[in-house]
């Protein structure tokens, strides 16, 4: 089946209509150096059964290790109904439809998603999603710089304990716009971002403070004190949160005296499989006053001429098809399919179910840490409370230990030595609700052998 629907005759007719002699002439404004030309590394095409067979063979050869790795993406149980429903033809499109108001069902799903995310974060508004957690934080930073009219600066306070890949992504997206990320140290004993570390910056001009909860070490931050400090200093507070954790932790809308201003994070824990790293989705929520600075699509509920309820894309004057170069973002899409899964996941679990998942993750991680730290030479790196991840100090380099564990069929965690060399032989471990007693025991036995 051809994937390009135009026949040679169609192409000729279109070229004739615009007065271009051939396709070369149509593309001649793209400099030759930027054009790919031949693709010698591309193998010959295979037919459908050959591709199926190749992928089956490769899938069968993949190890299925027992997973204790988190670091930003988490293995959770996804009720079977979620992807059964997402796969229905009516939903199976990753995109916001063109002529969106004709797709009332899709808009309603997005509206339900936004309502649930606003509820979970205790914020006024949620958009219809962004690409992933890291780019959502970049958008939150851009939004804060535009929205904070008390600040003339383009500087953002960014804790070192925030996900290193997020910090790198934000830097890549914002540094050419003159936005500077200023790193805040973490407490070497607690593993959190101490409010005292902010004292150095009091009275200086910053647009916003990013507050991770939990942070990359799994550690819970003193979010109330950090939020209040930001507001006293005329900074906006950007919450970077794990959505599962919000079922048991105080939502960002209630942090400190007046709540966080912008909330973002990675939506993968809500119904998306790990799937080798994606596709996932980012979420972005804010207070009502900031909605005109928000990027992305927003679905609203309204009534039609006959007074019947309906759904519509709203506040589109923020978007690039109207505001052009001054749009709040050039992202005009969302991760519709992942968001549909998240909506179904949240609807099927309900507030109580999500709370049980979060509580089970926390209990399993505590139990895991307790077992592992009984092994000689293994200890906790930080003493503050965690959600569902913790840092362990090992007697040997974490990379070697992880290789040893993998030989036992165990994905043992994330080696922190690359991003945090100051921690020495440090390993980030995670046990979600999908791990049971026997799994924890198996990990403990393997680790005792490997270290």
């Amino acid at each position, binding site marked *: 089946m051809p994937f390009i629907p135009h026949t040679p005759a169609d192409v000729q007719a279109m070229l004739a209509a615009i007065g271009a002699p051939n396709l070369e002439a149509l593309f001649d404004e793209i400099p030759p150096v930027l054009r790919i030309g031949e693709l010698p590394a591309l193998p010959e095409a295979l037919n459908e059964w050959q591709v199926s067979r190749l992928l089956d063979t490769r899938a069968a050869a993949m190890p299925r290790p027992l997973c204790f790795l988190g670091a930003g993406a988490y293995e959770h149980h996804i009720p079977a109904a979620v992807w059964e429903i997402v796969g229905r033809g009516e939903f199976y499109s990753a995109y916001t439809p063109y002529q969106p108001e004709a797709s009332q069902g899709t808009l309603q799903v997005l509206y339900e998603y936004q309502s649930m995310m606003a509820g979970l974060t205790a914020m006024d508004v949620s958009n219809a999603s962004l690409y992933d957690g890291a780019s959502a934080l970049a958008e939150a930073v851009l939004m804060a710089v535009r929205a904070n009219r008390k600040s003339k600066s383009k500087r953002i306070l960014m804790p070192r304990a925030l996900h290193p890949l997020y910090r790198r992504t934000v830097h890549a997206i914002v540094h050419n716009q003159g936005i500077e990320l200023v790193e805040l140290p973490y407490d070497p004993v607690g593993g959190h971002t101490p409010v005292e570390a902010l004292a150095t910056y009091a009275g200086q001009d910053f647009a916003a403070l990013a507050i991770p909860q939990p942070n990359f070490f799994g550690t819970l931050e003193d979010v109330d004190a950090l939020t209040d400090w930001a507001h006293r200093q005329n900074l906006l507070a950007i919450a970077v949160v794990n959505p599962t954790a919000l079922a048991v932790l105080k939502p960002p809308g209630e942090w400190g005296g007046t709540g966080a201003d912008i909330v973002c994070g990675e939506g993968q824990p809500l119904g998306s499989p790990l799937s080798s790293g994606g596709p996932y989705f980012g979420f972005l929520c804010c207070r009502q006053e900031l909605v005109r600075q928000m990027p992305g699509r927003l679905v609203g509920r309204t009534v039609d001429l006959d007074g019947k309820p309906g759904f519509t894309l709203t506040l589109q004057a923020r978007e690039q098809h*109207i505001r052009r170069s001054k749009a709040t973002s050039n992202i*005009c899409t969302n991760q519709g399919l992942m968001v549909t899964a998240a909506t179904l996941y949240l609807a099927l679990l309900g507030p109580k179910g999500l709370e049980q998942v979060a509580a089970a993750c926390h209990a399993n991680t505590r139990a895991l840490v307790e077992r592992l730290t009984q092994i000689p030479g293994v200890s906790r790196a930080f003493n503050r409370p965690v959600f569902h991840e913790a840092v362990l100090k090992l007697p040997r380099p974490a990379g070697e230990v992880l290789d040893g564990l993998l030989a036992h069929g165990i994905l043992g965690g994330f080696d922190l030595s690359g991003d945090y060399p100051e921690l020495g032989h440090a390993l980030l471990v995670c046990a979600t609700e999908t791990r049971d007693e026997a799994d924890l025991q198996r990990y403990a036995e393997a680790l005792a052998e490997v270290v």
Partner: protein
Amino acid sequence: MSSIIPAELRYTESHEWVRANDDGTVTVGITDHAQHLLGDLVFVEIPEVGRTVTAAESCAVVESVKAASDVYSPLDGAIVEVNEALADKPELINEDPYGEGWIFRLKTTAALEGLLDAKAYEAIAIAEDEDDEGSLANPKLAD
């Protein structure tokens, strides 16, 4: 479409009107013609008091149900007062563009003579009515 163009005011090609006040300040808003083109306004982003602006610098945004458009300072100066009422009632610009719908007041030493008079602005407005293409309320929709 005929719009009101008061003879005593000065104008810019980007559809701002300018009124000279007795205290040496000028008041700025958008013209009746501009508000017609934009349609019902739903939001106005007003500048901060104290901000220094140069002529043709974007310093406010008017947003309608179908478009958002920048408002430019007609002259060099400093913003001394803004119309706070627009925060809750952006429709004041539709209802009374030259009165209740003013946007900001500018302290300036620049001469108004460089700006358009009513007759010159009327010519621009009429030309735009005849050729709707590219007018501020008619952005081409694309995705």
